[in-house]
């Protein structure tokens, strides 16, 4: 049943999304693609939309997929599902299990999870970058226009950290990328 699948899919996303906005995208992408709810193009599209609308990206994507697949009820289900794990865990930590995060077994599990999540995020970022920079049609060729855009974005994004000591906001980088896309392609 679609509602149950929606709930389960986004509950999983909610359980395993550690570390903030962009770190949850690889996980969402994995779940959404495996159920066939959205294409890679639509995911990118929705990330851009999420950046320009309020609220956490994870919640925005959940609401969108839910509404797309199951109307209003679907949207309510996915939004609740993605929020529920965080809600329950914080409730347990503040009320009953105040020291659970200091428990050595819980710590060990988290120490195993976090490096794995980082590896997954890195792999997804690399894979997405590769699919942008190369054209896989007849053989493999470089996509020059994309390489130019990628180079500019990397310089802006990592350069602002180094020289301005300030991180450029994601929304600003996305706006620059949109302009570059219109000019170059």
């Amino acid at each position, binding site marked *: 049943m679609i509602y149950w699948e929606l709930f389960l899919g986004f509950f999983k996303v909610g359980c395993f999304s550690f570390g903030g906005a962009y*770190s949850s995208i690889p996980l969402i992408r994995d779940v959404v693609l495996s159920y066939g709810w959205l294409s890679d193009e639509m995911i990118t599209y929705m990330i851009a939309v999420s950046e*320009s609308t309020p609220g956490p990206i994870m919640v925005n994507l959940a609401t969108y997929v839910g*509404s797309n697949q199951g109307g*209003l009820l679907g949207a309510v289900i996915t939004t609740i599902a993605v*929020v529920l794990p965080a809600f329950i865990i914080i409730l347990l930590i503040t009320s009953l299990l105040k020291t659970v995060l200091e428990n050595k077994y819980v710590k060990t599990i988290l120490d*195993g999870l976090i*490096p794995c999540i980082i590896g997954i*995020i890195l792999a997804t970022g690399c894979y*997405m970058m590769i699919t942008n920079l190369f054209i896989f049609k007849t053989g493999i060729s470089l996509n020059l226009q994309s390489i130019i855009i990628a180079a500019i974005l990397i310089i802006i994004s990592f350069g602002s950290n180094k020289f301005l000591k300030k991180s450029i906001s994601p929304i600003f980088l996305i706006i620059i990328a949109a*302009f570059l896309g219109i000019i170059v392609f």
Partner: protein
Amino acid sequence: MKLLFNLFLTFFKIGLFTFGGGYAMIPIIEQTCVKNNKWITHDEMMNLTIVAESTPGPIAINLATFVGYRQKGLIGSIVSTFGVVLPSFLVIYIISMYLNNFLEITIIAKAFKGIKIAVSVLILKVAINMIKKIPKKPVPLIIMLSSFLTMLLINIFAWNFSSISLMLIAAAVNLVIFIVKNNSKSKGEAVK
């Protein structure tokens, strides 16, 4: 009742005015919950920010649940969490009804080709920032590298293996290593 309404309204505003989510929300939560309403102390907020790093979910949800629970128990936490999620839910729900064939307009399709590259840069940047924070010890580094390679292969060959299974395996492996180490340590002490 007034407190509940106040909690709802405050978190509704927080949800409405924070774009992109994540740490962008912390200064606004500091202003409203710590300075204006004195619902939690600055130290409590900083502590919860650290806790939020080792618990799943957006930090805004974590903070809303925490503040709500502190002020009014379970019902308070439900009201605050509902309040913080509602604005983004409404906005996206309305958008999803009207946004369909935008991508077929040429100029927008071109812009999105650019944005797609920006998203991969942003994801890579998050990964690099997180790598800087992991302890430089063999076990975490090996877990990270092998997860990276496995996930890359899963992506390239479109294997039917979810990233969540990968995470569960990593957690289990680390737990087994920990238990084995502990056992051999206690045995060593027993021999002495």
